[in-house]
């Protein structure tokens, strides 16, 4: 089989890609601008012998996908700001219990009910720190319809590999955009499934993990090995404990399974012309305006570099530090009041100046606005 060309909406690509990744259980509650994902899940899942359920709210939705995953089925939900806020407690639960699941947040303008149909990138920090306590998380953001299709598959792969909740941080402009895309041939797509305990292994413990991945092999419920899952701090047996040594051991492993595998998890797009004095750091939908601004600058003989984050969290610290060695100025373009810019400031070398252009009025960043800011900085 070869690839196929189709016209697709971002939200549609998200669901179709998830099906390719093996997602067979969806629980959700409708909210603009993510609703098409739920509608398509309801239509498509039974065709693939999977299941869809519309829950009573977003708290129930994330709880249900945790249940689905514990039963061994790749599970997801999709929402937007208000629903994402409601999901936070159980995102932490998925993190501490190492339950793979994917949460799509098609961002809209906030706070609160905010601007339901307008694009925004206001949930960057919430995606990392929305749930309480130190915890691992992976956050990935797509810029196009094709990338939405490809990256949702990556979200499932990383979630299964590291047994961690993965947040797919879309924005309204990508979710509702329609583009012609080349659907890749399925046989060319890598699919990763969670590790299971070896059959004869009678020393197996559900929360014991070693090796580089530091991720335990936890089998689905109902497959013969009985064990306990709890959101309390637990030992390798999964039993609750408040012993400080065991607490340290668990939390450090949870954090380090992401930290030690940054090179596997972090991806980005970078192109820095040799003479560029400035680079723009961006991600998601607004990266498209940035690219246009860079082209326009080139027409005026100004070389501008591009660094587009694909993995937002863990933050590409090393890569941003390197970037700041290459240019004198970094401009961070994001559709919020300044979230990623502070991360860039934290990582950039002393001497490289870091600037910000953002918007919180529900409109997108226009290429000319970005270009004007570039000229102002250099």
């Amino acid at each position, binding site marked *: 089989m070869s690839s196929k060309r189709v016209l697709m909406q971002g939200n549609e690509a998200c669901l179709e890609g998830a099906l390719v990744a093996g997602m*067979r*259980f969806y*629980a959700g509650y409708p909210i603009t601008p993510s609703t098409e994902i739920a509608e398509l899940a309801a239509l498509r899942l*039974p*065709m*693939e*012998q999977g*299941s869809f*359920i519309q*829950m*009573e*709210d977003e*708290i*129930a*939705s994330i*709880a*249900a*996908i*945790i*249940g*689905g*995953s*514990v*039963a*061994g*089925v790749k*599970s997801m939900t999709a929402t937007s700001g208000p629903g994402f806020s409601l999901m936070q*407690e*159980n995102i932490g*639960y998925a993190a501490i219990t190492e339950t793979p699941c994917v949460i799509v947040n098609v961002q809209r303008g906030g706070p609160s009910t905010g601007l339901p149909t307008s694009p925004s990138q206001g949930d960057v920090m919430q995606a990392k720190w929305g749930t309480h306590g130190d915890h691992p998380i992976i956050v990935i953001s797509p810029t196009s319809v094709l990338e939405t299709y490809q990256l949702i598959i990556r979200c499932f792969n990383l979630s299964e590999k590291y047994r961690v909740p993965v947040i797919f941080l879309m924005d309204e402009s990508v979710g509702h955009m329609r583009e012609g895309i080349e659907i890749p041939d399925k046989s060319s797509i890598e699919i990763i499934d969670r590790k299971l305990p070896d059959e004869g292994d009678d020393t197996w413990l559900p929360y014991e993990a070693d090796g580089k991945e530091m991720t335990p092999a936890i089998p*689905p*419920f*109902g*497959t*013969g090995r*009985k*064990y*306990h*899952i*709890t*959101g*309390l701090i637990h030992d390798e*047996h999964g*039993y*609750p404990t408040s012993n400080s040594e065991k607490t340290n051991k668990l939390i450090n492993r949870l954090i380090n399974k992401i930290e030690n595998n940054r090179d596997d998890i972090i991806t980005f797009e970078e192109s820095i012309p040799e003479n560029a004095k400035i680079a723009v750091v961006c991600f998601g939908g607004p990266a498209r305006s940035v690219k246009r601004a860079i082209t326009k600058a080139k027409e005026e003989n100004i070389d501008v570099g591009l660094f587009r984050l694909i993995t937002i969290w863990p933050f590409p610290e090393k890569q941003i530090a390197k970037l700041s060695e290459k240019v004198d100025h970094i401009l961070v373009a994001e559709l919020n009041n300044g979230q990623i810019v502070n991360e860039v400031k934290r990582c950039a070398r002393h001497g490289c100046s870091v600037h910000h252009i953002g918007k919180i009025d529900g409109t997108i960043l226009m290429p000319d606005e970005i270009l004007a800011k570039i000229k102002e900085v250099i």
Partner: protein
Amino acid sequence: MTHEIIEKYFRKDMMPHIFCPGCGHGVLMKDIACAIDKLDVDKDKICLVSGIGCSSRATGYMDFNTIHTTHGRAIAVATGIKMANPELMVIVITGDGDAAAIGGNHFIHAARRNIDLTVFVFNNNIYGMTGGQFSPTTPTDDYGTTAPYGNIDQDFDIADLAKYSGATFVARGSVYHVDKTIRLMERAMLHKGFSVVDCMSNCPTYYGRKNHKGKAPDMIRWQKDNAVDSKKAETMTDEELTGKIIIGETHHDNREEYTAKYQKIKDRFVGGIK
């Protein structure tokens, strides 16, 4: 018998348990094991799901596929397990606060769907774990640490809440009525649909002390003295039933179960999209 049940179904390495001396939750936990023992089902397929509270700690002590979730969310997690794999027998252990306050929305909607879950509510009329605050089942005028002048809230009847939300098997048991409660639990688990057993528990540490109900044996004796069988209750007036607790099956119907209905949709696509 007890020894055998403990050997078969409990995690001895998790003992001692956290329940206070005289707490009714331990008795109810053993009742569940006894009821499961009577079932002719593959024990590896049994999942026990709980929320947060003293009652919800029961799952940790029992040797099945067990998951102790977040406060109020057990029924929502259980719904996901059942939808993802309808072959599993999914049982929820929850408290009156967990099921009817923070988890009340999940309770009524799971009942409305009639999804095949069995919910055992360990109802002690108080928030035990957090130290004796009033709950949605604390009777009006009783005391809790957050109702120092008497509770002005009206209380829920969990069995009625279940019935009127759409549950298709509803019963009430108690710590005192061991054999009867085990039988009701067994029938609830065998029923295909959303089943609820409101299990009257007792919290001597907080509810008992705050409300001068005596020690654990006094509280359990109260259950004995005030219980009326559900059959007999049908012949009694509201006046006669005031202050009584109705024990036994209170509702049963055969409305089609949710995952069975969903399976019919899936079956339309067996062998590809038609």
